[in-house]
């Protein structure tokens, strides 16, 4: 195709998103001795073959020292030499090598070291408390089997010595959280835990010093051990989701090509731009800042900004908003607003204003604790007073009261929620859904109304050819051969996966905002809007038609007409149907034109569809539904959906969503299919049921055990048996969630090759 003005392969290769060597240098860090380490996120890796493919591709590069894929966090860490014998190296080859074997690779915005550190601290605490619990239990068993007098005292002292550092080291998570809750005048699950642990240790120490018979060191430490396991699982679940979601972050435009008055160009950071500065934006780049087009013509894909599915054509004098993708032509833009006042900043302000309902939500465990701790503490106090007043022996009264506290310590309660949620999150993960935190699962179980965005959520935001009207057969082939030269979404849809090499044009040129023209011999073919192709608007005015229209003309005479609509997301229909049949109220809130919205609503059977909504109106619609007593699940992806995602009771976004949309959502699904939404709701409801069952089990255990403790019959042996069994029962009940419902198809596995089929075509 050397005769063509435009090389199709080059144009398509742009799609991969090139990253400059300077940006990579900024993202990598030096290891000394001329070595640098670069961490990349590769969201598509999912099995052992992926690991091998990527590592082999990277190690094959001459300047790469080592490369290691981390499958859990979906990252590659690559060590490379800054210089080889042939001069300075170009690290962008690393990203290209990964893309060449069929995986996306993104620079990591910044390594999230804080969370990694917390995880390691928690794991260390689990290790330390596990060690202490095992050793103390060993000594306690000897005491229970009959060690007495001096031997028993010695065992108690050794236990006290082991327990003290474990208590401080492993217990600090609970003490800190309990203290911060108490400081704000509230109570959470950690308050009764901290109280029971420290009181039981104190009383045991006092008993030991006075040659007492019962010491509770084993109960103290194994309690910490069990609870830390729950806490660590919870943390790992959240961290896994966070790292997967952060790894998707596309590079927001950090810089822009500034055009100085004298015509010279230089690359500056977006924050340095001032109002009135003129910047150049090439085709295939995102607009970095709000502004007015001064020169050039192009089409902008604003679907992620406004939800509008059709590209908007822009020319000198029209406005261009930041975040839109420049599709067909180079533009020169004069900045009208600073980056920090831009549309995105406004959206973030709206989001913060909207985030009321979620902050007010109290976790089910905390709600349980606010009932539980007063009940338990007053029971212990009553026991203490009763034994003191009626028995007269205040020391004995204190011992019995502490036994009540230990027996009622919410060991099973502390595990009841996190274990169920971790199992549910694992189940969702297998279906390609990430859960950001446990409270999202609790909120998802409560919803009764689902609001969908249209573009990018119910539809894929990419057009699909629905009808070709033509009188001459080869027209379709000619149109496809022309379309392959453009990156306009309609051209891409028309060209499809067909190999256009059979037809060669002598010249091909693209008119931004119009279409393509190509010549074969003396014949001039034009493909584009009716006005561009035929010279005047002859067909039905496309303004309020739900279908988008493209014309092909030969020497100015129209020969074919192609009609497009937006592709529905696979599974969208099933998702809507199954939600409706389960009794959910469904509604569509979209920023797209009303006629397009109505069309999609008809296709999906949605009873209510609101179009042409601004981000603020979307929030108001959500607020109106909430005020009517609904708990709303918002499913959306765009920048314009972000405030609504934040305002809703709970929200889900696809992984293709805008960065701000993904940050606002509670769940992110990595699957192309929308029917994961009803599945996620179902799993959330089942986990809520299991959590309630677990609470019932834990409370039932307390009802049995408390009278024994209050009667003064509880010994450390009884306490540890009761505690362990109740924990095991709760965990076993939680594991029922994962049983017998494996997903049929493997999610997300097939998406990586599919995305890259376009480039190799």
């Amino acid at each position, binding site marked *: 195709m050397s005769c063509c003005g435009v090389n199709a392969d080059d144009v398509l290769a742009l799609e991969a998103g090139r990253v400059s060597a300077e940006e990579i240098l900024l993202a990598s860090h030096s290891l000394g001795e001329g070595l640098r380490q670069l961490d990349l996120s590769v969201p598509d890796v999912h099995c*052992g073959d992926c*690991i091998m493919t990527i*590592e082999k591709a990277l190690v094959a590069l001459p300047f790469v*020292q080592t*490369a290691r894929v981390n499958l*859990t966090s979906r990252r590659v860490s690559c060590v490379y030499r800054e210089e080889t014998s042939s001069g300075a190296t170009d690290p962008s080859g690393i990203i290209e090598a990964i893309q060449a074997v069929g995986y996306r690779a993104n620079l990591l915005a910044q390594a999230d070291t804080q969370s990694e550190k917390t995880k390691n601290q928690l794991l260390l605490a689990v*290790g330390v408390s596990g*060690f202490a619990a095992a*050793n103390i239990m060993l000594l306690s068993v000897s005491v229970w089997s009959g060690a007495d007098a001096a031997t028993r005292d010695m065992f108690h002292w050794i236990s006290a010595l082991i327990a003290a550092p474990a208590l401080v080291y492993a217990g600090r998570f609970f003490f800190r959280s309990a203290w911060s809750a108490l400081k704000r005048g509230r109570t959470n699950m950690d308050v009764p835990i901290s109280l029971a642990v420290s009181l039981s240790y104190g009383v045991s120490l006092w008993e030991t010093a006075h040659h007492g018979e019962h010491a509770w060191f084993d109960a103290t430490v194994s309690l910490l051990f069990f609870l830390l396991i729950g806490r660590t699982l919870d943390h790992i679940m959240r961290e896994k989701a966070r790292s997967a979601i952060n790894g998707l972050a596309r590079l927001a435009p950090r810089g822009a090509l500034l055009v100085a008055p004298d015509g010279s160009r230089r690359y500056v950071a977006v924050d340095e731009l001032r109002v009135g500065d003129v910047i150049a934006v090439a085709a295939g780049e995102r607009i970095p800042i709000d502004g007015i087009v001064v020169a050039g013509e192009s089409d902008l894909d604003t679907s992620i900004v406004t939800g509008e599915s059709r590209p908007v054509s822009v020319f000198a004098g029209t406005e261009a908003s930041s975040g839109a993708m420049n599709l067909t032509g180079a533009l020169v833009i004069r900045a009208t607003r600073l980056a920090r006042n831009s549309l995105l900043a406004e959206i973030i302000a709206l989001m913060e204003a909207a985030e009321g309902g979620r902050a007010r939500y109290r976790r089910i465990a905390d709600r349980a604790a606010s009932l539980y701790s007063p009940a338990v503490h007053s029971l212990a106090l009553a026991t203490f007073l009763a034994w003191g007043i009626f028995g007269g022996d205040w020391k004995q009264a204190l011992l019995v009261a502490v036994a009540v506290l230990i027996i009622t310590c919410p060991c099973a309660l502390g595990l009841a929620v996190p274990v169920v949620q971790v199992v549910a999150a694992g189940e969702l993960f297998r279906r390609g859904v990430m859960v950001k935190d446990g409270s999202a699962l609790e909120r998802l179980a409560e919803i009764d109304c689902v609001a969908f965005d249209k573009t990018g959520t119910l539809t894929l935001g990419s057009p699909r050819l629905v009808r070709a009207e033509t009188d001459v057969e080869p027209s379709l082939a000619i149109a496809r051969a022309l379309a392959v030269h453009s990156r306009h979404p309609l051209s891409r849809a028309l060209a499809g996966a067909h190999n256009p090499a059979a037809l060669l044009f002598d010249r091909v040129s693209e008119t931004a905002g119009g279409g393509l023209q190509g010549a074969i011999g003396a014949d001039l073919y034009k493909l584009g809007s009716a006005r561009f192709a035929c010279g005047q608007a002859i067909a039905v005015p496309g303004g309020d038609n739900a279908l988008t229209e493209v014309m092909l003309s030969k020497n100015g005479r129209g020969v074919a007409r192609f009609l497009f609509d937006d592709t529905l997301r696979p599974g969208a229909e099933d998702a809507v149907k199954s939600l409706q049949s389960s009794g959910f109220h469904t509604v569509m809130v979209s920023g797209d034109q009303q006629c397009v919205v109505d069309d999609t609503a008809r296709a999906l059977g949605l009873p209510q569809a609101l179009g042409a909504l601004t981000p603020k109106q979307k929030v108001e619609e959500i607020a109106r539904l909430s005020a009517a007593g609904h708990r709303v699940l918002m499913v959306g992806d765009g920048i314009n959906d972000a405030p609504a995602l934040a305002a809703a009771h709970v929200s889900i976004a696809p992984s293709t969503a805008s960065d701000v949309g993904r940050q606002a959502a509670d769940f992110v699904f990595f699957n192309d299919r929308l029917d994961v939404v009803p599945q996620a709701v179902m799993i959330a409801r089942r986990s809520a049921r299991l959590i309630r069952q677990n609470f019932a089990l834990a409370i039932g255990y307390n009802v049995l055990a408390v009278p024994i403790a209050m009667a003064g019959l509880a010994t450390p042996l009884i306490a540890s048996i009761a505690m362990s069994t109740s924990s095991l029962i709760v965990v076993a009940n939680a594991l029922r969630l994962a049983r017998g419902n494996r997903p049929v198809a493997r999610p997300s596995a097939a998406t990586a090759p599919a995305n890259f089929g376009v480039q190799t075509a």
Partner: protein
Amino acid sequence: MNMLIYLIPIALFMGAMGLMAFLWSLRSGQYDDLQGAAWRVLSDDDIDPPKP
């Protein structure tokens, strides 16, 4: 009961060794990629060692 003088320190020492082993494995990154490790053990060919 004199044997306790030996046995208790031995028990504690063995427990401490276990704890040390756990701390070492945590610090040296053995738990960083549990899913990846499960796949790597199945792969036949090793990636080339660092080039000279």
